[in-house]
Protein backbone atom coordinates (compact mmCIF):
# COMPACT_ATOMS: atom_id res chain seq x y z
CA UNK A 1 0.00 0.00 0.00
CA UNK A 2 2.88 2.25 0.94
CA UNK A 3 4.50 1.91 -2.49
CA UNK A 4 1.23 2.47 -4.26
CA UNK A 5 0.74 5.68 -2.35
CA UNK A 6 4.21 6.95 -3.15
CA UNK A 7 3.75 6.13 -6.81
CA UNK A 8 0.43 7.99 -6.82
CA UNK A 9 2.02 10.98 -5.11
CA UNK A 10 4.83 11.08 -7.67
CA UNK A 11 2.27 10.77 -10.46
CA UNK A 12 0.43 13.85 -9.20
CA UNK A 13 3.65 15.77 -8.76
CA UNK A 14 4.72 14.87 -12.34
CA UNK A 15 1.37 16.08 -13.59
CA UNK A 16 1.88 19.42 -11.83
CA UNK A 17 5.36 19.66 -13.38
CA UNK A 18 3.85 19.34 -16.84
CA UNK A 19 0.86 21.59 -16.28
CA UNK A 20 2.70 24.81 -17.30
CA UNK A 21 3.53 23.34 -20.74
CA UNK A 22 -0.09 22.40 -21.31
CA UNK A 23 -1.21 25.87 -20.23
CA UNK A 24 1.25 27.66 -22.52
CA UNK A 25 0.24 25.52 -25.49
CA UNK A 26 -3.50 25.95 -24.91
CA UNK A 27 -3.39 29.68 -24.16
CA UNK A 28 -1.26 30.52 -27.18
CA UNK A 29 -3.01 28.22 -29.61
CA UNK A 30 -6.56 29.25 -28.65
CA UNK A 31 -6.25 32.87 -27.52
CA UNK A 32 -3.27 34.23 -29.45
CA UNK A 33 -3.00 32.25 -32.68
CA UNK A 34 -6.76 31.47 -32.58
CA UNK A 35 -6.48 28.14 -34.29
CA UNK A 36 -8.05 24.84 -33.18
CA UNK A 37 -5.83 22.20 -31.55
CA UNK A 38 -5.00 19.88 -34.45
CA UNK A 39 -5.28 16.56 -32.66
CA UNK A 40 -6.88 16.66 -29.22
CA UNK A 41 -6.79 12.90 -28.64
CA UNK A 42 -3.08 12.69 -29.38
CA UNK A 43 -2.42 15.69 -27.14
CA UNK A 44 -4.23 14.18 -24.15
CA UNK A 45 -2.88 10.67 -24.62
CA UNK A 46 0.66 11.93 -25.26
CA UNK A 47 0.58 14.10 -22.15
CA UNK A 48 -0.53 11.09 -20.07
CA UNK A 49 2.46 9.16 -21.41
CA UNK A 50 4.79 12.03 -20.52
CA UNK A 51 3.41 12.14 -16.95
CA UNK A 52 3.83 8.37 -16.60
CA UNK A 53 7.34 8.49 -18.09
CA UNK A 54 8.49 11.26 -15.77
CA UNK A 55 7.16 9.31 -12.78
CA UNK A 56 9.03 6.13 -13.75
CA UNK A 57 12.20 8.10 -14.45
CA UNK A 58 12.23 9.78 -11.02
CA UNK A 59 11.38 6.47 -9.31
CA UNK A 60 14.27 4.75 -11.10
CA UNK A 61 16.62 7.65 -10.49
CA UNK A 62 16.62 7.23 -6.72
CA UNK A 63 16.81 3.46 -7.00
CA UNK A 64 19.56 3.12 -9.57
CA UNK A 65 21.35 6.08 -11.18
CA UNK A 66 22.14 7.93 -7.93
CA UNK A 67 23.23 4.82 -5.98
CA UNK A 68 25.35 3.54 -8.91
CA UNK A 69 27.21 6.84 -9.33
CA UNK A 70 27.80 7.24 -5.61
CA UNK A 71 28.81 3.62 -4.99
CA UNK A 72 31.37 3.77 -7.80
CA UNK A 73 32.78 7.03 -6.46
CA UNK A 74 33.20 5.47 -2.99
CA UNK A 75 34.73 2.28 -4.36
CA UNK A 76 37.28 4.17 -6.46
CA UNK A 77 38.13 6.41 -3.50
CA UNK A 78 38.62 3.40 -1.23
CA UNK A 79 40.69 1.55 -3.82
CA UNK A 80 42.89 4.62 -4.07
CA UNK A 81 43.66 4.08 -7.74
CA UNK A 82 43.76 7.54 -9.25
CA UNK A 83 44.75 6.15 -12.64
CA UNK A 84 41.66 3.95 -13.03
CA UNK A 85 39.39 6.63 -11.64
CA UNK A 86 40.60 9.03 -14.30
CA UNK A 87 40.26 6.41 -17.04
CA UNK A 88 36.70 5.83 -15.82
CA UNK A 89 35.96 9.58 -15.78
CA UNK A 90 37.19 10.00 -19.34
CA UNK A 91 35.34 6.92 -20.64
CA UNK A 92 32.10 8.00 -19.00
CA UNK A 93 32.28 11.44 -20.61
CA UNK A 94 33.37 10.17 -24.01
CA UNK A 95 31.08 7.12 -24.10
CA UNK A 96 27.90 8.90 -23.08
CA UNK A 97 28.42 11.76 -25.52
CA UNK A 98 29.49 10.04 -28.72
CA UNK A 99 26.10 8.32 -29.15
CA UNK A 100 23.98 11.23 -27.89
CA UNK A 101 21.04 11.68 -30.34
CA UNK A 102 20.87 15.48 -29.90
CA UNK A 103 24.55 15.73 -30.79
CA UNK A 104 24.14 13.54 -33.89
CA UNK A 105 21.40 15.90 -35.12
CA UNK A 106 23.50 19.02 -34.50
CA UNK A 107 26.57 17.47 -36.16
CA UNK A 108 24.60 16.67 -39.34
CA UNK A 109 23.26 20.20 -39.47
CA UNK A 110 26.75 21.58 -38.97
CA UNK A 111 28.04 19.50 -41.89
CA UNK A 112 25.36 21.03 -44.14
CA UNK A 113 26.41 24.52 -43.09
CA UNK A 114 30.09 23.76 -43.62
CA UNK A 115 29.35 22.43 -47.11
CA UNK A 116 27.20 25.47 -47.89
CA UNK A 117 29.93 27.81 -46.67
CA UNK A 118 32.52 26.14 -48.88
CA UNK A 119 34.55 24.88 -45.92
CA UNK A 120 34.32 21.29 -47.15
CA UNK A 121 33.28 19.66 -50.42
CA UNK A 122 29.56 19.28 -50.98
CA UNK A 123 29.72 15.50 -51.48
CA UNK A 124 27.90 13.17 -49.11
CA UNK A 125 31.17 11.50 -48.05
CA UNK A 126 32.74 14.80 -47.09
CA UNK A 127 29.67 15.75 -45.04
CA UNK A 128 29.53 12.39 -43.26
CA UNK A 129 33.22 12.58 -42.44
CA UNK A 130 32.84 16.14 -41.17
CA UNK A 131 29.84 15.23 -38.97
CA UNK A 132 31.65 12.20 -37.51
CA UNK A 133 34.75 14.30 -36.84
CA UNK A 134 32.63 16.87 -35.05
CA UNK A 135 30.93 14.22 -32.90
CA UNK A 136 34.28 12.71 -31.92
CA UNK A 137 35.58 16.20 -31.11
CA UNK A 138 32.67 16.95 -28.79
CA UNK A 139 32.92 13.50 -27.17
CA UNK A 140 36.66 14.05 -26.59
CA UNK A 141 35.86 17.44 -25.10
CA UNK A 142 33.32 15.98 -22.65
CA UNK A 143 35.70 13.14 -21.70
CA UNK A 144 38.41 15.70 -21.06
CA UNK A 145 35.96 17.82 -19.03
CA UNK A 146 34.99 15.00 -16.66
CA UNK A 147 38.68 14.01 -16.41
CA UNK A 148 39.75 17.54 -15.37
CA UNK A 149 36.65 17.92 -13.17
CA UNK A 150 37.52 14.78 -11.21
CA UNK A 151 41.13 15.96 -10.73
CA UNK A 152 39.72 19.25 -9.47
CA UNK A 153 37.54 17.50 -6.86
CA UNK A 154 40.49 15.40 -5.68
CA UNK A 155 42.90 18.33 -5.48
CA UNK A 156 40.28 20.74 -4.13
CA UNK A 157 40.95 23.47 -6.71
CA UNK A 158 38.38 26.27 -6.61
CA UNK A 159 35.86 25.77 -9.41
CA UNK A 160 35.53 29.36 -10.49
CA UNK A 161 39.19 29.76 -11.53
CA UNK A 162 38.81 26.89 -13.97
CA UNK A 163 35.45 28.10 -15.26
CA UNK A 164 36.72 31.65 -15.74
CA UNK A 165 39.79 30.31 -17.60
CA UNK A 166 37.36 28.37 -19.78
CA UNK A 167 35.42 31.56 -20.53
CA UNK A 168 38.62 33.37 -21.48
CA UNK A 169 39.53 30.41 -23.70
CA UNK A 170 36.15 30.65 -25.44
CA UNK A 171 36.50 34.40 -26.02
CA UNK A 172 39.99 33.99 -27.49
CA UNK A 173 38.87 31.13 -29.73
CA UNK A 174 35.87 33.20 -30.91
CA UNK A 175 38.24 35.82 -32.29
CA UNK A 176 40.13 33.30 -34.42
CA UNK A 177 37.48 30.71 -35.33
CA UNK A 178 35.70 30.86 -38.71
CA UNK A 179 32.42 32.76 -38.42
CA UNK A 180 30.26 29.85 -39.61
CA UNK A 181 31.30 27.55 -36.78
CA UNK A 182 30.69 29.94 -33.84
CA UNK A 183 26.92 29.41 -33.54
CA UNK A 184 27.27 25.63 -33.67
CA UNK A 185 30.15 25.71 -31.20
CA UNK A 186 28.19 27.76 -28.67
CA UNK A 187 25.14 25.51 -28.98
CA UNK A 188 27.19 22.30 -28.77
CA UNK A 189 27.90 23.07 -25.12
CA UNK A 190 24.24 22.75 -24.27
CA UNK A 191 23.34 19.60 -26.14
CA UNK A 192 26.01 17.29 -24.76
CA UNK A 193 24.51 16.49 -21.40
CA UNK A 194 21.71 13.96 -21.63
CA UNK A 195 19.04 12.89 -19.18
CA UNK A 196 20.97 9.80 -18.06
CA UNK A 197 24.43 11.36 -18.01
CA UNK A 198 23.47 14.25 -15.75
CA UNK A 199 22.28 12.22 -12.71
CA UNK A 200 25.17 9.75 -13.05
CA UNK A 201 27.84 12.42 -13.32
CA UNK A 202 26.30 14.50 -10.53
CA UNK A 203 26.19 11.46 -8.24
CA UNK A 204 29.81 10.66 -9.14
CA UNK A 205 30.98 14.19 -8.25
CA UNK A 206 28.99 14.41 -5.03
CA UNK A 207 30.05 10.87 -4.08
CA UNK A 208 33.74 11.66 -4.64
CA UNK A 209 33.50 14.88 -2.64
CA UNK A 210 31.85 12.99 0.24
CA UNK A 211 34.34 10.12 0.14
CA UNK A 212 37.50 12.24 0.09
CA UNK A 213 38.50 13.75 3.41
CA UNK A 214 38.47 17.54 3.52
CA UNK A 215 36.05 17.95 0.59
CA UNK A 216 32.58 19.33 0.97
CA UNK A 217 29.95 17.77 -1.33
CA UNK A 218 28.16 21.09 -1.75
CA UNK A 219 31.32 23.13 -2.45
CA UNK A 220 33.32 20.56 -4.40
CA UNK A 221 30.80 17.98 -5.62
CA UNK A 222 29.14 20.05 -8.31
CA UNK A 223 30.87 21.46 -11.37
CA UNK A 224 31.39 18.39 -13.57
CA UNK A 225 28.40 19.29 -15.76
CA UNK A 226 29.65 22.88 -15.97
CA UNK A 227 32.95 21.69 -17.46
CA UNK A 228 31.12 19.33 -19.79
CA UNK A 229 29.23 22.25 -21.29
CA UNK A 230 32.30 24.53 -21.54
CA UNK A 231 34.98 22.39 -23.18
CA UNK A 232 32.91 21.40 -26.26
CA UNK A 233 32.67 25.08 -27.25
CA UNK A 234 36.48 25.43 -27.24
CA UNK A 235 37.09 22.08 -28.93
CA UNK A 236 34.49 22.66 -31.67
CA UNK A 237 35.95 26.08 -32.53
CA UNK A 238 39.39 24.46 -32.70
CA UNK A 239 37.92 21.80 -35.02
CA UNK A 240 36.51 24.55 -37.23
CA UNK A 241 39.92 26.18 -37.44
CA UNK A 242 41.79 23.00 -38.32
CA UNK A 243 39.37 21.68 -40.98
Amino acid at each position, binding site marked *: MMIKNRFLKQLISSFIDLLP*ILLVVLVFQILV*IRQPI*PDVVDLIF*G*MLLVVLGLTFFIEGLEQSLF*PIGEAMAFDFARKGSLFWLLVFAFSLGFGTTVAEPALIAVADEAATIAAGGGMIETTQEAKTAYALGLRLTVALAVGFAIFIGVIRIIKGWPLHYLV*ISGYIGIVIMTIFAPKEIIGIAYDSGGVTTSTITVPLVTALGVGLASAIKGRNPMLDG*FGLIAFASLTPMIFVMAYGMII
Partner: protein
Amino acid sequence: MIEWLLSFWQTLLGTFRDVMPIAAIIIGFQVLIIRKPIHQPKKIFIGFFYVLLGIALFLQGLEMALFPIGELMAKQLTAPEFLHIDVSLGNVPWQAYYWVYIFAASIGFATTLAEPALIAVAIKAQEISGGAIHALGLRLAVSVGVAFGIALGAYRIVSGTELYIFIIVGYVIVIIQTFFAPKMIIGLAYDSGGVTTSTVTVPLVTALGLGLASTVPGRNPLLDGFGLIAFASLFPIIAVLGYAQIADWNSRRGQKQSK
Protein backbone atom coordinates in the same frame (compact mmCIF):
# COMPACT_ATOMS: atom_id res chain seq x y z
CA MET B 1 -3.29 0.52 -31.16
CA ILE B 2 -0.94 -2.01 -32.78
CA GLU B 3 0.67 0.80 -34.69
CA TRP B 4 1.18 2.71 -31.47
CA LEU B 5 2.69 -0.32 -29.68
CA LEU B 6 5.07 -0.81 -32.57
CA SER B 7 6.24 2.79 -32.44
CA PHE B 8 6.59 2.63 -28.65
CA TRP B 9 8.63 -0.55 -28.99
CA GLN B 10 10.96 1.27 -31.36
CA THR B 11 11.34 4.20 -28.99
CA LEU B 12 12.14 1.75 -26.18
CA LEU B 13 14.73 -0.01 -28.37
CA GLY B 14 16.21 3.36 -29.35
CA THR B 15 16.50 4.40 -25.70
CA PHE B 16 18.10 1.07 -24.91
CA ARG B 17 20.63 1.57 -27.71
CA ASP B 18 21.49 5.07 -26.44
CA VAL B 19 22.10 3.70 -22.95
CA MET B 20 24.21 0.72 -24.04
CA PRO B 21 27.58 2.56 -24.00
CA ILE B 22 26.91 3.90 -20.49
CA ALA B 23 25.85 0.48 -19.20
CA ALA B 24 28.88 -1.16 -20.84
CA ILE B 25 31.29 1.32 -19.24
CA ILE B 26 29.75 0.95 -15.78
CA ILE B 27 29.57 -2.85 -15.89
CA GLY B 28 33.06 -3.09 -17.39
CA PHE B 29 34.66 -1.00 -14.67
CA GLN B 30 32.61 -2.69 -11.95
CA VAL B 31 33.69 -6.18 -13.04
CA LEU B 32 37.27 -5.55 -14.18
CA ILE B 33 38.57 -2.76 -11.93
CA ILE B 34 36.47 -2.46 -8.79
CA ARG B 35 35.86 -6.24 -8.64
CA LYS B 36 33.25 -5.99 -5.97
CA PRO B 37 29.70 -7.32 -6.24
CA ILE B 38 27.10 -4.59 -6.68
CA HIS B 39 25.10 -3.83 -3.55
CA GLN B 40 21.42 -4.74 -3.98
CA PRO B 41 21.72 -5.74 -7.66
CA LYS B 42 18.02 -6.53 -8.02
CA LYS B 43 16.88 -3.11 -6.83
CA ILE B 44 19.40 -1.33 -9.08
CA PHE B 45 18.44 -3.45 -12.06
CA ILE B 46 14.73 -2.71 -11.59
CA GLY B 47 15.52 0.97 -11.05
CA PHE B 48 17.56 1.08 -14.23
CA PHE B 49 14.68 -0.51 -16.12
CA TYR B 50 12.34 2.15 -14.68
CA VAL B 51 14.70 4.85 -15.96
CA LEU B 52 14.69 3.32 -19.46
CA LEU B 53 10.94 2.81 -19.48
CA GLY B 54 10.41 6.32 -18.12
CA ILE B 55 12.56 7.98 -20.79
CA ALA B 56 10.92 5.94 -23.57
CA LEU B 57 7.39 6.82 -22.40
CA PHE B 58 8.44 10.44 -21.94
CA LEU B 59 9.89 10.69 -25.47
CA GLN B 60 6.96 8.86 -27.04
CA GLY B 61 4.51 11.17 -25.29
CA LEU B 62 6.43 14.30 -26.29
CA GLU B 63 6.51 13.19 -29.90
CA MET B 64 2.77 12.58 -29.89
CA ALA B 65 1.60 15.57 -27.92
CA LEU B 66 4.08 18.36 -27.67
CA PHE B 67 6.54 18.40 -30.56
CA PRO B 68 4.02 18.55 -33.43
CA ILE B 69 1.96 21.33 -31.88
CA GLY B 70 5.04 23.15 -30.58
CA GLU B 71 6.61 23.19 -34.03
CA LEU B 72 3.33 24.21 -35.62
CA MET B 73 2.98 27.08 -33.14
CA ALA B 74 6.55 28.23 -33.74
CA LYS B 75 5.78 28.32 -37.47
CA GLN B 76 2.43 30.11 -37.03
CA LEU B 77 3.81 32.70 -34.64
CA THR B 78 6.72 33.64 -36.86
CA ALA B 79 4.62 33.81 -40.05
CA PRO B 80 4.46 37.37 -41.45
CA GLU B 81 0.66 37.04 -41.96
CA PHE B 82 0.10 36.45 -38.26
CA LEU B 83 2.36 39.35 -37.25
CA HIS B 84 0.80 41.67 -39.89
CA ILE B 85 4.18 42.47 -41.35
CA ASP B 86 4.92 43.28 -44.94
CA VAL B 87 8.20 41.46 -45.48
CA SER B 88 8.68 43.00 -48.92
CA LEU B 89 9.31 46.38 -47.30
CA GLY B 90 12.58 45.03 -45.94
CA ASN B 91 13.52 46.24 -42.48
CA VAL B 92 10.95 45.17 -39.93
CA PRO B 93 11.14 46.80 -36.48
CA TRP B 94 12.04 44.26 -33.80
CA GLN B 95 9.00 45.25 -31.73
CA ALA B 96 6.70 43.72 -34.34
CA TYR B 97 7.73 40.28 -33.10
CA TYR B 98 6.54 40.84 -29.54
CA TRP B 99 4.32 37.71 -29.53
CA VAL B 100 7.38 35.65 -30.43
CA TYR B 101 9.31 36.97 -27.41
CA ILE B 102 6.37 36.29 -25.08
CA PHE B 103 5.97 32.79 -26.51
CA ALA B 104 9.72 32.14 -26.30
CA ALA B 105 9.79 33.12 -22.63
CA SER B 106 6.65 31.14 -21.72
CA ILE B 107 7.64 27.95 -23.51
CA GLY B 108 11.22 28.20 -22.17
CA PHE B 109 9.92 28.55 -18.62
CA ALA B 110 7.38 25.73 -18.93
CA THR B 111 9.63 23.18 -20.64
CA THR B 112 12.53 23.77 -18.24
CA LEU B 113 10.26 23.14 -15.28
CA ALA B 114 9.51 19.69 -16.75
CA GLU B 115 13.12 18.85 -17.70
CA PRO B 116 13.98 15.49 -16.05
CA ALA B 117 17.73 16.18 -15.78
CA LEU B 118 17.05 19.41 -13.88
CA ILE B 119 14.62 17.63 -11.53
CA ALA B 120 17.39 15.09 -10.81
CA VAL B 121 19.99 17.75 -9.97
CA ALA B 122 17.49 19.69 -7.86
CA ILE B 123 16.61 16.58 -5.83
CA LYS B 124 20.31 15.90 -5.23
CA ALA B 125 21.02 19.53 -4.26
CA GLN B 126 18.17 19.59 -1.74
CA GLU B 127 19.37 16.26 -0.32
CA ILE B 128 23.01 17.23 0.28
CA SER B 129 22.36 20.81 1.34
CA GLY B 130 20.12 19.42 4.09
CA GLY B 131 17.16 21.36 2.72
CA ALA B 132 18.94 24.73 2.66
CA ILE B 133 18.40 24.69 -1.09
CA HIS B 134 14.81 24.06 -2.01
CA ALA B 135 14.40 21.83 -5.07
CA LEU B 136 11.43 23.74 -6.46
CA GLY B 137 13.03 27.12 -5.74
CA LEU B 138 16.11 26.09 -7.68
CA ARG B 139 14.02 24.82 -10.59
CA LEU B 140 12.01 28.04 -10.69
CA ALA B 141 15.19 30.14 -10.71
CA VAL B 142 16.62 28.08 -13.56
CA SER B 143 13.34 28.30 -15.50
CA VAL B 144 13.28 32.09 -15.16
CA GLY B 145 16.85 32.14 -16.49
CA VAL B 146 15.95 29.99 -19.50
CA ALA B 147 12.81 32.08 -20.18
CA PHE B 148 14.86 35.27 -20.27
CA GLY B 149 17.64 33.62 -22.29
CA ILE B 150 15.37 32.30 -25.02
CA ALA B 151 13.40 35.55 -25.30
CA LEU B 152 16.66 37.47 -25.63
CA GLY B 153 17.93 34.90 -28.12
CA ALA B 154 14.79 35.38 -30.21
CA TYR B 155 15.36 39.15 -30.14
CA ARG B 156 18.94 38.56 -31.27
CA ILE B 157 17.80 36.55 -34.29
CA VAL B 158 15.26 39.26 -35.20
CA SER B 159 17.68 42.15 -34.74
CA GLY B 160 20.61 40.30 -36.32
CA THR B 161 23.08 41.24 -33.58
CA GLU B 162 26.23 39.14 -33.36
CA LEU B 163 25.90 36.17 -31.01
CA TYR B 164 29.30 36.51 -29.36
CA ILE B 165 28.59 40.01 -28.03
CA PHE B 166 25.75 38.70 -25.84
CA ILE B 167 27.75 35.67 -24.76
CA ILE B 168 30.79 37.71 -23.73
CA VAL B 169 28.65 40.22 -21.79
CA GLY B 170 26.93 37.25 -20.12
CA TYR B 171 30.30 35.79 -19.11
CA VAL B 172 31.39 39.10 -17.59
CA ILE B 173 28.17 39.23 -15.54
CA VAL B 174 28.71 35.63 -14.34
CA ILE B 175 32.30 36.41 -13.30
CA ILE B 176 31.26 39.52 -11.35
CA GLN B 177 28.42 37.61 -9.66
CA THR B 178 30.79 34.78 -8.75
CA PHE B 179 32.82 37.08 -6.52
CA PHE B 180 29.77 38.22 -4.56
CA ALA B 181 27.59 35.10 -4.43
CA PRO B 182 27.65 32.71 -1.45
CA LYS B 183 30.40 30.09 -2.04
CA MET B 184 28.03 27.19 -1.47
CA ILE B 185 25.93 27.91 -4.56
CA ILE B 186 28.66 28.46 -7.16
CA GLY B 187 29.15 24.85 -8.30
CA LEU B 188 25.44 24.22 -8.47
CA ALA B 189 24.83 27.46 -10.37
CA TYR B 190 27.47 26.64 -12.99
CA ASP B 191 26.01 23.14 -13.37
CA SER B 192 22.49 24.43 -13.80
CA GLY B 193 23.54 25.94 -17.12
CA GLY B 194 24.27 22.54 -18.60
CA VAL B 195 21.25 20.62 -17.37
CA THR B 196 18.54 22.89 -18.67
CA THR B 197 18.72 21.95 -22.27
CA SER B 198 17.96 18.35 -23.00
CA THR B 199 14.95 16.25 -23.84
CA VAL B 200 12.06 18.71 -23.78
CA THR B 201 13.61 22.10 -24.44
CA VAL B 202 16.04 21.48 -27.32
CA PRO B 203 13.60 20.32 -30.05
CA LEU B 204 11.09 23.10 -29.35
CA VAL B 205 13.69 25.82 -29.09
CA THR B 206 15.41 24.64 -32.26
CA ALA B 207 12.07 24.80 -34.11
CA LEU B 208 11.54 28.35 -32.89
CA GLY B 209 15.04 29.44 -33.94
CA LEU B 210 14.70 27.90 -37.39
CA GLY B 211 11.22 29.39 -37.81
CA LEU B 212 12.46 32.86 -36.96
CA ALA B 213 15.62 32.67 -39.03
CA SER B 214 13.71 31.53 -42.09
CA THR B 215 10.97 34.20 -41.89
CA VAL B 216 12.78 37.35 -40.71
CA PRO B 217 14.03 39.17 -43.82
CA GLY B 218 17.79 39.06 -44.27
CA ARG B 219 18.39 36.08 -41.99
CA ASN B 220 19.88 32.81 -43.14
CA PRO B 221 18.32 29.82 -41.34
CA LEU B 222 21.58 27.92 -41.55
CA LEU B 223 23.64 30.65 -39.90
CA ASP B 224 21.27 32.64 -37.71
CA GLY B 225 19.06 29.89 -36.29
CA PHE B 226 21.72 28.95 -33.75
CA GLY B 227 22.39 30.51 -30.40
CA LEU B 228 19.14 29.92 -28.52
CA ILE B 229 20.54 26.86 -26.75
CA ALA B 230 23.70 28.78 -25.85
CA PHE B 231 21.53 31.50 -24.29
CA ALA B 232 19.43 28.90 -22.49
CA SER B 233 22.62 27.49 -20.93
CA LEU B 234 24.10 30.85 -19.93
CA PHE B 235 21.24 32.76 -18.32
CA PRO B 236 20.25 30.10 -15.75
CA ILE B 237 23.74 30.54 -14.23
CA ILE B 238 23.03 34.26 -13.79
CA ALA B 239 19.53 33.55 -12.46
CA VAL B 240 20.68 30.97 -9.88
CA LEU B 241 23.59 33.14 -8.70
CA GLY B 242 21.21 36.09 -8.41
CA TYR B 243 18.61 34.03 -6.55
CA ALA B 244 21.23 32.88 -4.02
CA GLN B 245 22.51 36.42 -3.66
CA ILE B 246 19.05 37.80 -2.86
CA ALA B 247 18.33 34.95 -0.43
CA ASP B 248 21.66 35.68 1.27
CA TRP B 249 20.95 39.43 1.57
CA ASN B 250 17.48 38.73 2.95
CA SER B 251 18.74 36.37 5.63
CA ARG B 252 21.49 38.83 6.62
CA ARG B 253 19.02 41.68 6.90
CA GLY B 254 16.74 39.44 8.98
CA GLN B 255 19.66 38.68 11.31
CA LYS B 256 20.49 42.38 11.71
CA GLN B 257 16.92 43.24 12.51
CA SER B 258 16.61 40.50 15.12
CA LYS B 259 19.70 41.87 16.84
